[in-house]
């Protein structure tokens, strides 16, 4: 009986958490998309600053990881394709898996580690130092002031980073292809472009938009819900990363299933 209670309680808590994320996303979206037209300016300077740290500063690590993932994927693909005498398909194998799945997912996980944790830590520390209260006493809504610029920055930067990561992965695959599979750089890129369908790129970018929403909402929500004390900031940062990864995978699963069942046969 107690076991059922635990399951029931956890389910209710989980749904309440999703509700709080939805509420936060709603308020942030209103601050970004609606209120500027009602005269309530969004801090563009703050958004640009966030875009720099979320996007531009992530380029080196995203490039490196995506490049290596491209090589790994090509190696793994080639391992099987070689047996079928179809090594020339390695280019299309890499680009399809990357654009549809691994590119958006790997980039999101990197950004969770860099920025999702940073959002939680920054806002959590502000909570502990009463800075969020100070904002309220100055008639500044913390959602409008802190969350909305991060939201806008993430929505713009994550798809861009994903696209760049996709390109670096293709380069990684190409490195393998040129070195060990008889491609030239030109033939590899031709084979890649032949295999690439707009739909694959678009689904990948749509996923990255949804991931952007999840990462910002979870990071900021964990920050806002931080309890008192330095230990709590550490805890909420960890929670932000773990919950973001889990929810990103869930969103990925749902979305991929929708595209599978609703797409053209």
């Amino acid at each position, binding site marked *: 009986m107690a076991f059922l209670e635990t399951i029931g309680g956890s389910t209710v808590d989980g749904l309440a958490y999703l509700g709080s994320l939805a509420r936060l996303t709603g308020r942030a979206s209103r601050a970004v998309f609606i209120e500027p037209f009602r005269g309530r300016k969004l801090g563009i300077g703050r958004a640009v600053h966030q875009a720099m740290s979320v996007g531009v500063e992530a380029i080196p690590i995203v490039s490196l990881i995506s490049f290596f993932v491209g090589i790994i994927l090509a190696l793994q693909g080639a391992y099987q394709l070689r047996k079928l005498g179809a090594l020339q398909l390695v280019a299309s194998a890499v680009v399809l898996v990357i654009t549809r799945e691994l590119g958006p997912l790997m980039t999101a996980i990197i950004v969770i580690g860099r920025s999702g944790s940073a959002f939680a830590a920054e806002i959590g520390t502000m909570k502990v130092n009463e800075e969020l209260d*100070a904002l*309220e006493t100055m*008639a500044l809504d913390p959602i409008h002031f802190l969350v909305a610029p991060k939201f806008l920055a993430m929505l713009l930067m994550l798809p861009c980073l994903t696209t760049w990561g996709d390109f670096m992965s293709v380069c990684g695959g190409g490195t393998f292809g040129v070195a060990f599979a008889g491609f030239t750089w030109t033939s590899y890129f031709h084979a890649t472009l032949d295999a690439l369908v707009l739909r694959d790129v678009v689904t990948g970018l749509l996923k990255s938009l949804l991931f952007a929403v999840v990462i910002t909402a979870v990071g900021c929500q964990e920050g806002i819900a931080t309890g008192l004390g330095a230990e709590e900031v550490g805890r909420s940062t960890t929670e932000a990363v773990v919950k973001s990864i889990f929810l990103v995978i869930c969103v990925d699963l749902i979305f991929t299933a929708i595209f599978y069942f609703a797409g053209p046969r």
Partner: protein
Amino acid sequence: MTKTEHSTAASDITSQPSISVRDLRVNYGEREILHGISFDVQAGETLVILGGSGSGKSTLLRTLAGLEQPSGGEVRIQGLNFPALSEREKDELRLKMGMSFQSGALFGSMTVGENVALPLRENTALDESTIEIMVRLKLDQVGLSGFERYAPSQLSGGMKKRAAVARALAMDPEILFFDEPSAGLDPIIAAGIDQLILKLKEAFKITILVVTHELASAFLIADRMILIDKGNIVANGTPAEFRASQQPRVRQFLDRIPEAEVTGEIDYLQMLTGEIPPPRR
């Protein structure tokens, strides 16, 4: 008209209190922290809220500043029932109030100047050069001239408090809240903060509410004082009335008489939550 006649006439016109609290109750979850307290603060008055740790004084200040929602009662600020207002109306009233937090609560990612400028930048349409002048003025008023470009981490404890006061003064508020202004400061620096509060009182006639348990500061700056104990007001009067009071709780507080030794967990919990209400005055 002499100055006193003139000010009497003015106070007849605006005779409603600046802040009026009636039967205020505040809960944290299931626990009631404030058990229906009532008091008034007149315009231009300095009220000191005294109380021990866990008495509810910080909860009271936070509720008056709009950071906590009461579970019952009224908080009237300049005649308006603050908790019942819409967010927009609350924001309008918030612009007339300023709060200085215990640790300063300066934004670490901004310089001192940017901290003070923030309410002006976000809430007014003033141009940058005007804002710059006002920032310099405010920092001057608190004795921090020339510190605009410093980061909060480069300031001492006393300087952080001063910077926080400058930020609270940015919008020329009519009401100022101070949460433990002397906490963590040595007596000399704390005396400096007291002088600052007195200066604000004399120069700007702001209504000031101070939460503190530093008795020396309290008696220096207060026009009136209230003592909160376990969520109830047990004394309300002028500093002279407090000094003369024979009320046991007041005497214990002023004469620094320690609590009886707590001998068990039940006693400790009762002491903290005040489940046995203190005798009424």
